[in-house]
């Protein structure tokens, strides 16, 4: 007898094919298993059906009306038809209605070639504007500098609302008005920058059209690269190496680190650095902080990671009672920037005023982080000048004439280029925790860690908790990703605070986006859990491939402290590598 409980299933037919699926499976998903593709513009694998677009209608034999496949569970004995004449006609008319309410601006749209509406229109072989076009003019919202809302292109599928409200618990976006005047907008019809928006960009990653896009700053990078008075250097974030290939047709998780080095050098960057290096620096600072708080009781626990700017913004707006728990260490992006303009500039003999630091990030909130506080100008210069997302980089590469995939491998530049396995896993949920534990273990015990992998903090569950043995001491940790999962964890801590009890956790890692940075709002389109797993696997492989797997053992990091910074958390480190937080109002007016 098998001890494994099997889910009850239902048997039915789809286009005459017998399918057996677990109870509760939607007709849409059941059809996929039978290799039947039912079109939809609103259902996203990450999200519950919104039932908005009306394209997924199917017929159950004998039923009085068509059913929406996205939100109707397959029932035993159903005889589903997905593509009969009437269904196809209804879908086509509905699609033409949607197109009639969408600007015909494909050629100049940010989603050109990657748009779900465009591709479905192509699939349906739409060749004329069957219904007179009506699009209400509405200026775009460019207030955040991270995300642009191009309202006219919105098809009201409702994905971004569900992402913003339920997945991320941010509640910046809502629907306003009704009928044909219905529009997606920041709640209360204010500017996005005045709203609770944390710039995570998940809305843009889930939008089927060009209605929500990153603020494209490639032009500024081209200008800097062509400016003879400037010296451009670049850094690539941990997760970008395993996602950028998707924009060139490679499977998710393909590690292109070395091709990226070559490509960036060909683009004209004077030096190519790796954010993984500064991730190692961040870990050295953060692990030191943790050991101080945990072992020496200097500072409140839990310590909470702060390298995700969307999370930081969210905390400052909604959970500012945790400001003192936040690690003051800057994020790797900012650390690399400030070190480039001080340490590297000195060593290379470059005037930091001429230095332009460009970062390639998975994230739209990273654009906001560049000028988040005055600490982001710690050296007297802006740590990082321009931040591009993975999607923008892919576009630059395509424009540049570089045959990216045919390039030979390259190398990063010293002295900000070498990285440990711990630095590379920053790009996944649980990675910062794992990296910090590797180094904290060393700092607390003085011993070299035998098994560096902490499986307990890995995976895609929204909240993962574990008790980790650090030299005999039990460290209680929690990892949350997707801002919607954060409140529950913080509430546990608050509860303990109110009751005067010990905190339930000593160390909490939060990443705003589901999956961490590999699922960031600036990554190539089409994210779902399957893709997240592949991307994460790519990073863990990169970790395993490294000879050095702990941040404090990265030789360039050791050199940095010896030659330039002094002690971790020391005076100079504090001056350049740390920041502060302030409570901010949810709404700015």
């Amino acid at each position, binding site marked *: 007898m098998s001890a494994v409980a099997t889910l009850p299933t239902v048997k039915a037919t789809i286009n005459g094919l017998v399918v057996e699926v677990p109870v509760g499976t939607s007709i849409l998903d059941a059809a996929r298993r039978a290799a039947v593709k039912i079109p939809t513009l609103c259902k996203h694998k990450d999200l519950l059906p919104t039932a*908005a677009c*009306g394209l997924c209608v199917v017929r159950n034999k004998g039923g009085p009306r068509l059913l*929406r496949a996205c939100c109707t569970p397959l029932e035993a004995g159903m005889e589903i038809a997905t593509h009969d004449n*009437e269904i196809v006609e209804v879908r086509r008319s*509905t699609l033409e*209605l949607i197109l009639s309410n969408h600007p015909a601006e494909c050629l100049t749209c940010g989603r050109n070639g990657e748009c779900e509406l465009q591709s479905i229109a192509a699939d349906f072989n739409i060749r004329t504007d069957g219904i007179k076009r009506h699009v209400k003019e509405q200026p775009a919202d460019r207030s955040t500098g991270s995300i642009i809302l191009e309202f006219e292109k919105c098809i009201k599928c409702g994905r971004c609302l569900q992402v913003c409200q339920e997945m991320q618990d941010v509640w910046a976006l809502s*629907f306003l*008005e009704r*009928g*044909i005047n219905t529009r997606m907008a920041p709640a209360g019809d204010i500017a996005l920058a005045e709203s609770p928006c944390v710039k995570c960009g998940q809305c843009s990653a889930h939008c089927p059209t060009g209605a929500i896009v990153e603020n494209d700053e490639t032009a500024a990078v081209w200008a800097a690269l062509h400016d003879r008075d400037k010296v451009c250097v670049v850094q690539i974030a941990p997760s970008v190496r395993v996602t950028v290939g998707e924009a060139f047709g490679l499977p998710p998780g393909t590690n292109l680190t070395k091709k990226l080095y070559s490509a960036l050098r060909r683009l004209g960057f004077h030096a190519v650095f790796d954010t993984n290096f500064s991730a190692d620096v961040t870990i050295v600072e953060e692990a030191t902080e943790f050991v101080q708080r945990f072992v020496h009781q200097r500072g409140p626990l839990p310590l909470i990671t702060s390298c995700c700017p969307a999370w930081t913004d969210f905390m400052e707006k909604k959970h500012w009672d945790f400001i003192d728990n936040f690690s003051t260490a800057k994020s790797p992006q900012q650390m690399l920037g400030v070190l480039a303009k001080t340490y590297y500039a000195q060593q290379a003999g470059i005037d930091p005023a001429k230095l332009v630091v460009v970062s390639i990030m998975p994230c739209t909130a990273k654009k906001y982080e560049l000028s988040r506080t005055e600490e982001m100008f710690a050296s007297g210069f802006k740590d990082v000048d321009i931040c591009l997302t993975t999607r923008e980089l892919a576009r630059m590469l395509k424009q540049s004439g570089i045959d990216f995939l045919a390039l030979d491998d390259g190398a990063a530049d010293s002295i900000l280029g070498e990285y440990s396995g711990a630095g590379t896993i920053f790009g996944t949920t649980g990675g910062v925790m794992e990296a910090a534990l590797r180094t904290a273990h060393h700092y607390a015990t003085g011993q070299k860690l035998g098994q560096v992998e902490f499986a307990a903090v890995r995976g895609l569950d929204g909240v993962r908790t574990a008790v980790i043995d650090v030299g005999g001491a039990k460290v209680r940790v929690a990892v949350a990703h997707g801002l919607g999962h954060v409140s529950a964890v913080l509430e546990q801590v608050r509860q303990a605070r109110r009751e005067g009890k010990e905190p339930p956790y000593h160390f909490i890692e939060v990443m705003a986006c589901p999956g961490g940075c590999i699922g960031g709002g600036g990554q190539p389109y089409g994210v779902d859990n399957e893709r997240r797993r592949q991307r994460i696997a790519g990073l863990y492989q990169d970790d395993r491939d490294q000879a050095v797997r702990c941040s404090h053992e990265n030789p360039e990091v050791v050199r940095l402290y010896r030659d330039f910074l002094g002690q971790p958390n020391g005076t100079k480190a504090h001056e350049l590598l740390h920041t502060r937080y302030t409570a901010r109002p949810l709404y700015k007016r």
Partner: protein
Amino acid sequence: MKPLTLDDLAALASRPAPVTTDFVRVQLDTGGIAAGAEETFAAFRSAVAAAALSTPVLRVGSHGRSWADPVVEVAAAGLPPVLYGGVKADVAPQIVAAHLQSGRLIDDHVIAPASGAAELAAPVTHLLVLDTGVGEAKTKFFQFSFVEELKRRGLADQIQVARALDLGVYDEGVVVTLLPAGVTYTNVLAPDVARIVEQSVQGRQVLDDLLWKRTDPQVRIVLRNCGSIDPESLPDYLERAHGYQGLRAALARTPEQVIEELKVSGLRGRGGAGFPTWLKWTNTRIQKSEPRCVICNGDEGDPGAFMDRSVLESDPHSVLEGLMIAGYAIGAAHGYFYIRAEYPKAVERVERALAQAREAGLLGRNILGTGFSFDAKIRLGAGAFVCGEETALIASIEGKRGSPSPRPPYPSVRGLWGRPTAINNVETLANVPAILLRGGAWYAGYGTETTKGTKVFAVTGKVKNAQLVEVPMGTTLRSIVFDVCGGVLEDKDIKAVQTGGPSGGVIPDKHLDTPVAYETLQQLGSIMGSGGMIVMDTTDSMVDVAKFFLKFCVDESCGKCAPCRIGGFQMLQILDRISRGRGAAEDIAALRRICQAMQKASLCGLGQTAPNPVLSTLRYFDEEYKAYIEGGPSYARKMARAAGGAEPARALAPATTEGA
């Protein structure tokens, strides 16, 4: 009020309702108040006081004759109750002086629906005269003739001849009603005057050749108390309307038995879809999760419909009683009245009813010692038609944007706050106490094979007597329009009747003899809907009618799903073009195509049914569409002038419409 016991209720049940012979009841619902009933009420109070009379002046709800507002019922001077219509404040003193003080009826205000009586048991006291033919020119002449005849026979002092306002008979020439019996003669000619006085008034013989034998098709179950009790008085409801006896009957049985009684009655949801009420209750009751909820849907919003408003304003306790029985049947301790905010009077009266019921121990814990606990709250709708849709209504109560959500899960499984929820329309609930009290079989005795009981219709448009009508299912549309409501305004020819509000369709003249039932109306391309019925005459343009209803749906679309949001809007653009004579031949095909997409792919009933007015006008009046398209702007102008409009319907706001 002292908390009631089960024994108190039992005692009330066996006690006959007190007969009152001396009162002035002013019908104070929103319609009456708008017509000046508050002023009328005050005028009666002061006139009665000035005359030092003891007749109580009371407020009651409306029995539905909106066309005659303000309506007042008077019983005094030994006369049976007499209904007066059009009683503005200045008429009140006349009624007090004539009717209350000397037993005389005043001219031109009496409403005395023909009863079909065929016996003159008591001496005739009053003759009511009205010319129901075209022109109404002969009423005064016949009044004079009768008076002269009575004088000749020395009866003028004992018998009064008054001109009536309405005798419930239409297009039957001169009509004479003899009070107190109510015997009605129609098509009375001059030579008949002497005969009537001699044989009927003096001889108390009924003249068979003149006798009006037809009876009023109306049966008042839902409206049973409307206009006869004070909606703000619990004692009135208890003592004069068998109040809460239905609840008592329910509590004496098991919930399953209550549901069984509903099943026998055949009652189907009166909100429009006609889902069997017992099944809805069963589906909610069998859910394991608790607590469960019941909701009274009072978000009536069809243009021209005011049935629910009138019931809530005129008989709120009946609806509450129905809600409580529903709560008992499905095992819910929490109820909600979801009433649109545009109905402040209904809200006020339901609020008062709830407070009174709570005080009397009819709401709260362990009601009447039976172990059944129940309480109810009011939630206001914020002006969205779509919130009448169950899932949108639930979202609205929960404080969310009022948009429908996909089903399943059905509200009966996961409804308000995730709880199993039964949502019933006001009219459905108002039927429930009567069914429990008199039995499901009694109720099922009315109606047709598939559609039992009665239905309240709000008849408006080009009709003489715009009013509420309650008739057994199966009554024909023609009977409703002509027998009950007096036919078409200005005696024009009828073209069609629109039923079902914006989700319904038009039913042309040739189909007006269809008996009303859910299925029959559907076959004609319309629906029962909540009961709006709009009468159209031959000057009404069907393209404009379609445009009117579609415009309503376009304004009220929540915007959630693409087929409804964009489809409705695009259809309206096309209809607007056609109605201005700027349509093209291919527009009809485009309309049909969008109709199909909306019907098949919209998420909720609003979108699925919004094309109905267009489809049904295309079905029966497609030549009108063609005439507009072929005739061009000049034809459109001609049609507009014929309809009484100065100029053709102005173009809709251009494509960039602002919010409604």
